[in-house]
């Protein structure tokens, strides 16, 4: 099957059909904000929002996830998603790429040098069985910078089916065999025309042209390593208040804490999102904290994304979705941070 066309009038029946065998998630309103929520009908889906307030990482890696419960009878692992595989509609290129990165960590998608390939069963159960319908962005926001990272508003990496919003219809193109198999089982499509293909290509190039000039990121990791000890970190972190708004809204941040909640002889073990912005993140039992200062924690976040992760996994841990830029209470803009560090000492700039 090649590209097919879905009339927007038939979108409702498409979602119903998809729901028959899948737990469908799509952008929708939850408490006033947009995030990926379980949906059963077209009405619950927000087709307008480009970058949801919360990223879809929570679908596969929830904020708080019970790993197991225990009591005197034994240990139980909670049942997941009533057995249905997950289908996500409307994931943008930045978010679909973030899942590929998370899969390197949790799904061991690449071979580690020591052959110790850890596979996280909670992640794999959800992610491996999922099918991702991703949508190209026709009008990227001013905060979007996906074009910095060999991707762009119409990147289909990490998707099983790539969708182009062509006005009155969606154009769906299978990216993986899994995506092709799911599309084969669904009806409500018509064949695409040559004109559709031209439209898709035009929308892709217009979207990319509408974005600001990207920063050169080749050699970014090395540049950061070279400036690890420079006072520039004090300068850029001065305004940071070390909350977790950036890391919690980030589609790629994946650090977590494991906590036990018990009472008497029963209890549960829970995995909870954690943030390198919090002082307690690195607090040691002795009371010593290797990252006691704000500047050390800001540096860690930047280094992990643009130096350590690429060193280990071969790509930046950032997809340019811009959520951290939008959400930061003090407007600490990661794009400016990288530019400032890059420029530091290059032209004798030592004071911002």
């Amino acid at each position, binding site marked *: 099957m090649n590209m097919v066309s879905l009339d927007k009038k038939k979108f409702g029946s498409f979602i119903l059909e998809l729901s028959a065998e899948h737990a469908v998630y799509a952008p929708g309103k*939850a408490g006033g904000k947009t995030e990926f929520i379980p949906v059963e009908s077209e009405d619950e889906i927000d087709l307008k929002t480009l970058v949801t307030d919360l990223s879809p990482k929570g679908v596969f890696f929830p904020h708080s996830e019970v790993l197991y419960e225990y009591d005197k009878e034994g240990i139980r692992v909670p049942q997941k998603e009533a057995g249905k595989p997950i289908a996500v509609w409307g994931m943008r290129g930045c978010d679909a790429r973030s899942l590929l990165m998370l899969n390197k960590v949790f799904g061991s998608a690449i071979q580690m040098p020591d052959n110790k390939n850890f596979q996280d069963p909670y992640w794999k159960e959800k992610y491996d069985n999922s099918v991702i319908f991703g949508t190209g962005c026709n009008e990227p926001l001013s905060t979007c910078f996906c074009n910095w990272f060999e991707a762009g508003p119409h990147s289909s990496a990490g998707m099983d089916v790539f969708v182009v919003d062509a006005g009155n219809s969606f154009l769906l193109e299978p990216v993986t065999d899994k995506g092709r198999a799911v599309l084969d089982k669904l009806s409500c499509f018509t064949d695409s025309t040559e004109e559709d293909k031209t439209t898709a290509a035009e929308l892709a190039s217009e979207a990319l042209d509408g974005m600001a000039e990207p920063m050169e990121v080749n050699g970014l990791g090395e540049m950061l390593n070279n400036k690890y000890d420079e006072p520039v970190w004090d300068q850029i972190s001065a305004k940071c*208040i070390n909350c977790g708004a950036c890391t*919690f809204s980030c589609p790629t941040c994946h650090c977590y804490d494991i906590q036990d909640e018990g009472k008497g002889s029963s209890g549960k073990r829970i995995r909870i999102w954690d943030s390198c912005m919090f002082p307690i993140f690195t607090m040691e039992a002795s009371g010593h904290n290797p990252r006691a200062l704000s500047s050390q924690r800001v540096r860690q976040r930047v280094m992990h994304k643009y130096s350590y992760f690429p060193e280990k996994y071969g790509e930046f841990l950032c997809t340019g979705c811009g959520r951290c830029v939008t*959400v930061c*209470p003090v407007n600490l803009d990661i794009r400016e941070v990288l530019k400032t560090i890059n420029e530091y000492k290059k032209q004798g700039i030592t004071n911002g």
Partner: protein
Amino acid sequence: MNTTDNLRKTIKTLISEKKVDLFLGWEKGSLPLSATPLFVTTGEQAERAIFDVTCGNNLSIYFTKDKKQYANKKVGIAVKGCDARSVVLNILEKQIKREDVVIVGVPCNGVLDKKKVLAATEGREVLELVDNGDTVTVKGKGFELSLNRQEILSSSCLACIYPDAQEYDFFMGEARGEVPNEERVKEIIDFQNLPDSDRWEQTRAEYQKCIRCYACRNVCPSCYCNVCFVDQNDPKWIGSTCEYTDSVIFHVIRNLHVAGRCVECGACERACPMDINLLMMNRKVAMEVKDRFGDVAGLDINGKPAMSDFKEDEKQKFIMG
């Protein structure tokens, strides 16, 4: 001379005359709806200072960051009325010394709440903002709107009584004086009058949104404990999940911990990435404190914070029932 020019000139003078080592102000941010904190140490940097409807940050948080990073430094700070109360509170609570701070008041007509602007543009991205005083013009791809200032102000500003710094060394322009605000407690009274079950439902719905990022706590100038109760893990006081049972406890304890200390600046609510109505509870507590102890946090530099003081004639309902 407008406020921004006046402010720049004052900062420059303070720096050049070595009255301060550092000045905390605001500059234009990377996004049209957000100014960003500015740390001035040179006259050149002072040229970047601004004050307008986007300057929502309460800069006094920086006094207590990283264990009083500015100890032994003279620091100047630009303050709105609410921010000035935070500085005073920091002084009364012995976090900073009055003689080490140069307080520069700015005439404030309220700061914007991003979510209200986005509601007005129906979610369309704003690419440019111009503060005209009574109106604010926002522009984006294919639209330009002139918004009534009142329509986009932070809820803290709509309920504000003291827009001017009560304690200052310099004031940039004309003070507005106290703003009589009869309507300010309406939301709280309405909420109070609801049946218990409805109040609980509303509270639960609000705090259920919480993702525990602690942006509210970290932008709060009154939240500066060396180790916050949520970070204590030996023993652990409360759970860290985003179940409302955990989140409600976090928010309620925080409310009570800032009782008599919250200056109602609204920084918490503007910082919240999940748009939780955080301020109403804080304002309710402030209302109780005023009623019982006659104290308004940070208003009187010669006063004592309500929770650090005891008067024989104060209402003791909470003890006597």
